[in-house]
């Protein structure tokens, strides 16, 4: 799309400035503070750290492959078939991704056979569980808009269903699959909670090691060297990846109304039924453990945790671990709303800037993904030593929290929007222009309908991510306001069965809110296209 240079620059400047202010500068500052040639050399030659790096890489690669493999069938079923309860299933699969690992990890651990405790298998299973939604939603969004007649054409040419999948569908879905894989890879590459809770002390990733070196051992030079190498690796990977994605982009003729149909044959009905049943079972079992846990009272069941939670709201006793759970709910919603607006504006501008310009844009794309591949503690400590002067004297200010959430959420907005924008057939725009539409009108008529749906999808994800964000929030110094995940973490910091049940109860509230938010967003986007 041809835009005035001023517009293109403005579109790129917004996300660039945001990224530079709240990610690039802090990270560079903290790494520069500790980095030395000796430390890098030491890190590169230490066999222990080398094995940490290797384990981090291969578990992330394996987790990504498994998650993509596990997510494709549900993505297909949810994208292509309409059935009662589909919107709820779609919302449900999103919940694990955004619930804090402190609590879902504990539920997962309780369900794990003891033989799998502290094994790589447990880590991989949890990574698939937590990131399934990324694949289902990212790939499903494109899949729902892919013209099924392309696949039908292939079948009439003699291709078996498997050949259609391999030769037509998957290649066409590649931008979305690559997007989902890159996000999953970064999330598992920087995995922290899952590794600590399910992997135990024998499985150490770069993220865990940087956290330990920075916050526990205070070996800043080694931590800085590791953070530097982590950043280099992730940067290289992202530049290569987004370049590859740009090269692969093909103009698809998308159908903005979605292509879901009611299953007609008994085979289709079986496929839909079995897939949905398996999906719901896998997703809901650990989640239902949260709900059951919230009703556990002594050796039986009861409402004690919920009563305690309600009693602590308002004039609760000050010595409870969580002074006011209701306040935590409101704080979370407020931060999520602000973070969503920030992420949608910045992510939307970034996606447009990337989609509409030819050179250099994929570097912006890569840059916005970097925060996902950088350890939260590096960013947190970086903000500490940079946000200490006017006018960005934001340390201890609440605004840093929604900003940190937006930094995490922006790449999701970009991922949600970009494949759709890139897939618009340019001839549609040419057609509109020849019909007398000025550039702005062309954009409104052709790009906006695609953009709007994708932005709403990105907004839903951003909102949910903010609701559940724990890692970055916990590093920032906060006054008063505690979000729900922080409150849950605090409940789990004091011994007593009731506190555990209250943590589960608050997690249940968080889960219900997440479900409601995702359902509302899906509803907003229209009945026929709940993706």
């Amino acid at each position, binding site marked *: 799309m041809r835009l005035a240079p001023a517009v293109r620059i403005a579109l790129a400047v917004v996300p660039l400035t945001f990224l530079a202010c709240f990610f690039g500068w802090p990270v560079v500052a903290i790494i520069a503070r500790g980095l030395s040639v000796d430390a890098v050399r030491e890190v590169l030659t230490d066999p222990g750290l080398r094995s940490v790096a290797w384990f981090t890489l291969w578990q992330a690669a394996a987790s990504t492959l498994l998650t993509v493999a596990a997510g494709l069938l549900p993505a297909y079923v949810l994208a292509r078939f309409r059935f009662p309860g589909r919107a709820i299933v779609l919302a449900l699969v999103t919940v694990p991704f955004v619930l804090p690992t402190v609590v879902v990890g504990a539920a997962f651990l309780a369900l794990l056979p003891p033989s799998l405790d502290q094994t790589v298998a447990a880590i991989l299973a949890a990574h698939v569980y937590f990131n399934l939604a990324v694949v289902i939603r990212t790939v499903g969004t494109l899949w729902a808009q892919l013209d099924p007649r392309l696949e039908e054409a292939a079948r*009439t040419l003699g291709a078996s269903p498997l050949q259609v999948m391999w030769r037509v569908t998957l290649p*066409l879905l590649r931008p979305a699959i690559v997007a989902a894989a890159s996000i999953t890879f970064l999330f598992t590459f920087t995995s922290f909670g899952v590794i600590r809770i399910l992997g135990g002390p024998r499985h150490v990733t770069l993220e865990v090691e940087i956290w330990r070196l920075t916050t526990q051992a205070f070996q800043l030079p080694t931590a800085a060297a590791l953070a530097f190498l982590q950043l280099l690796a992730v940067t290289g990977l992202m530049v290569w990846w987004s370049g590859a994605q740009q090269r692969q982009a*093909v103009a698809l003729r998308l159908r903005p109304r979605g292509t879901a149909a009611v299953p007609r*044959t008994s085979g289709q009905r079986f496929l839909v039924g079995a897939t949905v049943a398996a999906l719901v079972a896998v997703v809901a079992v650990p989640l239902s453990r949260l709900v059951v846990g919230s009703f556990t009272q002594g050796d039986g069941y009861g409402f004690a945790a919920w009563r305690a939670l309600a009693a602590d709201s308002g004039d609760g006793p000050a010595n409870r671990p969580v002074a006011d759970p209701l306040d935590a709910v409101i704080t979370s919603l407020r931060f999520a709303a602000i973070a969503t607006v920030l992420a949608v504006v910045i992510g939307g501008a970034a996606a447009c800037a990337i989609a509409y310009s030819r050179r250099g844009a994929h570097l912006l794309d890569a840059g916005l993904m970097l925060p996902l591949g950088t350890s939260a503690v590096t960013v947190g400590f970086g903000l500490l030593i940079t946000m200490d002067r006017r006018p960005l004297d934001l340390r201890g200010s609440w605004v840093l929290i929604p900003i940190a959430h937006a930094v995490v959420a922006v790449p999701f907005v970009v991922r949600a929007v970009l494949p759709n924008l890139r897939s618009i057939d340019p001839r549609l725009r040419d057609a509109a222009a020849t019909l007398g539409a000025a550039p702005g009108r062309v954009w409104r008529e052709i790009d906006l309908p695609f953009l709007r749906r994708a932005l709403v999808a990105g907004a839903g994800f951003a909102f949910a991510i903010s609701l559940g964000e724990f890692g970055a929030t916990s590093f920032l110094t906060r006054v008063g306001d505690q979000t729900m995940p922080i409150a849950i973490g605090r409940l789990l910091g004091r011994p007593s069965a009731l506190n555990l049940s209250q943590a589960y109860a608050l997690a249940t509230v968080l889960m219900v809110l997440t479900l409601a938010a995702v359902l509302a967003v899906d509803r907003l986007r229209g009945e026929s296209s709940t993706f």
Partner: protein
Amino acid sequence: MLAVEDVSVRFGPRWVLQGVELVVRSNEVVGLLGPSGSGKSTLLRVIAGLLPPDAGRVRWDGEDVTQLPTHRRRFGLVFQDHQLFPHRDVGANVGFGLAVAGRPKAEVRARVAELLELVGLKGFEHRAVGSLSGGEAQRVALARALAPRPRLLLLDEPLGALDRELHDRLAVELRALLKQVGIAGVHVTHDRGEAEMVADRVLTMDDLHARARPSSGNGRFPESGGSGTTSP
């Protein structure tokens, strides 16, 4: 010989096809007329195996193929908006059916060249499908459908999106091509003129619902030819 016997299809409460009967003889091209929404495309999808009928059977040379999956029927289908694979070039689109059948590369290349020449697009193998004009895209779609040597060709408004002049020229070419290949076909359109130009015999959807039987009286015989002589 294709026989559609008592086929019914329902979408929710609405019957789109009810007791439809159709016979297409070998080497015969049947034109199927009807306004939009009359179930023409649905019928083609049932014949192609893309849509299982709620009742009725589809037979080929007496064999019941109703349960046979699409890719084993060897019925080609040309879509109105061609549905070329955007991630493959022209050659790979035309050669797709042969490639999935596991034919040797050399044979695929030769057949692709042969068909491209047949549709008048010699040397277009490495063109991107996005760079084709509407008429070119439609010819590629036709070549692609013919390449795996289907026993029946289904044409769903194949010329619907083209301008009048191109439309008429292609209609003539299509007729000649079908006769040259010698293939049975069902040609769906809402344009009686086009149907008469391309098909040997023209039926309306109403005829099919009235349990129409083939009769030599309401259509033209295969070798009657001359359809290209009518001018727009």
